[in-house]
């Protein structure tokens, strides 16, 4: 447990799952989520007598309350494992991804939700795939497989092909990526999983996104395409970097909001407070 942040999520929509769980569901059954009151005649359950409704009834019938059953929600971590995730700046981005997947797996297990892991680079990696699974051991094995994975992918196009691997029911999907892809592809990915509740978790790195204001010469090499660019570090370039980053975040936010949820930016380290607050605010 040490080092793994305690994350928690909660949803505003009702799960249609049959299995009971921790989230609000749509099926009637034992629970705390009152659906309606019905005459006692049909539902002879004196424990759930609705005194207020019974007293209010002019024909002096007895009423009982009907509740909805709590249900499970499958939790899917849709992870981008292209080579740019190997970036080591203020933190090792891939470490961040594995830690986050681990923390989400534990959070899902605490709530009894099935956990699924899908890792994609150019295509979904079958050896890293974990179908929805409620066992701790399964999730733990999948996370350790992910941790041992050597990143090779030149792109994250596989995120577009992951839809068939996701559960058919509406699930909570954490799309964990560094968003190092064209905005159109991000929107395509979000659109491909529109039936799910997709939380775009965008991993950033303060060192990657900022330039030093001190004078210097740096030659950057793109980890995925191998392209290179020489940059003359100077205060003007640092400003340009900051502006570009701000504009990019703004564009990412707009794109994600168009598909339902604002992005959750995680920079350098996972802050459980920020993560948990995100679900209160959205």
């Amino acid at each position, binding site marked *: 447990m040490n080092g793994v942040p305690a994350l928690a999520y909660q949803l505003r929509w009702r799960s249609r799952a049959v299995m009971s769980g921790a989230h609000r569901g749509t099926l009637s059954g034992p629970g705390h989520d009152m659906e309606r009151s019905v005459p006692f005649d049909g539902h002879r359950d004196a424990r759930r007598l609705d005194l207020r409704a019974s007293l209010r009834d002019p024909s002096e019938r007895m009423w009982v309350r009907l509740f909805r059953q709590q249900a499970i929600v499958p939790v899917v971590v849709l992870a981008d494992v292209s080579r740019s995730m190997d970036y080591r700046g203020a933190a090792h981005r891939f470490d961040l991804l594995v830690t986050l997947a681990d923390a989400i797996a534990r959070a899902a297990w605490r709530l009894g939700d099935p956990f699924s892991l899908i890792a994609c680079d150019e295509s979904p990696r079958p050896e890293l795939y974990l179908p929805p699974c409620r066992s701790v051991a399964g999730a733990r094995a999948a996370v350790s497989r992910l941790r041992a994975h050597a990143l090779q992918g030149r792109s994250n196009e596989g995120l577009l092909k992951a839809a068939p691997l996701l559960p058919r029911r509406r699930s909570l999907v954490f799309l964990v990526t560094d968003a190092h892809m064209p905005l159109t592809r991000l929107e395509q990915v979000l659109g491909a999983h529109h039936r799910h509740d997709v939380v775009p978790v965008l991993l950033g790195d303060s060192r990657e996104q*900022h330039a030093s204001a001190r004078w210097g010469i740096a030659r950057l090499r793109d*980890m995925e395409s191998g392209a290179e660019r*020489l940059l003359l570090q100077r205060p003007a370039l640092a400003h340009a970097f900051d502006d570009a980053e701000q504009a990019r975040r703004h564009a990412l936010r707009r794109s994600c909001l168009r598909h339902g949820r604002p992005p959750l930016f995680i920079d350098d380290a996972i802050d459980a407070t920020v993560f948990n607050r995100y679900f209160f605010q959205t």
Partner: protein
Amino acid sequence: MWSIDHPFVLWALALALAPLLWHGQRTLPHGWLPAVPPDPASRVLALALRLTGALTVVAAVLALSGLHRQGSAVEHVGTGAHIVITIDRSASMSDGFAGRDAKQGDEPKGQAAARLLEDFVRERPRDLFGMVAFSTAPVHGLSLTADQDAVRAAVRASAAPGVGLTNIAAGLTMALEQFRDKPVTGSRVVLLVSDGAARIDARAQNQIRRLFAENRSALYWIFLRSAGGRGPSDPPDPEKGFDPAPEYFLNEYFLDLGVPYRLYEADTPDALQRAIADVSRLQNLPLRYLETPPREDLGGICLAIALAGSLVLLLARSLEVSAWSR
């Protein structure tokens, strides 16, 4: 004209491609370059560094190959002539002049001639001078040269007392040989300084005539009259019996050569000076000649460029950062 001492070194110019193909810089991984804002200054810098590298290699290779500039021969137009001083060094040149005020202990003719000729040479820095001395046999002094010091030294040396007879034909032949195979870039003059004459036989006459025609040379004869001697302008006097008068006949022969010819009779140093001044004036015609400038070694400049380029690259190297955004 640019030229190179060791052309095979130029194969190393292929090394100049290396900075264009490889940058040799440390690369820092970055997640996604398209997100990096475009920066024209950096683009220019990247290109400039590569070109600097290539330029440095090119400059170093050129320096190694011994690049130099061999200026093409520049054609100058000067007032001058090719003058072969043909000076008589017979024994009689040690005698004094024949002027009215001549007396014992005067400057010998040879020394006066040498002194005045030296001034003459000094005043004409653009002329080419040759030097032939003759007495019984001709002595080759100097080929045609612009080296003033050498010419003056040769003229001074001719003042030393001479020996022997006056063999004009051999002296003239050698003087005219000086012009052989030289381009005709200005007027040519044979300046004959003598104090006597000799009969030139028919064969030598023909040869000299042919040489003058071939070389298109003018002839100035400065005749230094000896005391009691006769001049070329004195016709032979049948009253006096047998009178060979070689000077007179030589003058006649020269007049008949068909080339510009002038006779100066000098019986005092002043008259000699006037004669030389007259020659000097006559020969102030434009002269075209080629001057080959010394080669200009460009290796130093190339090395300076290479050094400057290397320093720039070194500076760029030292500015390289070890980690992005630290």
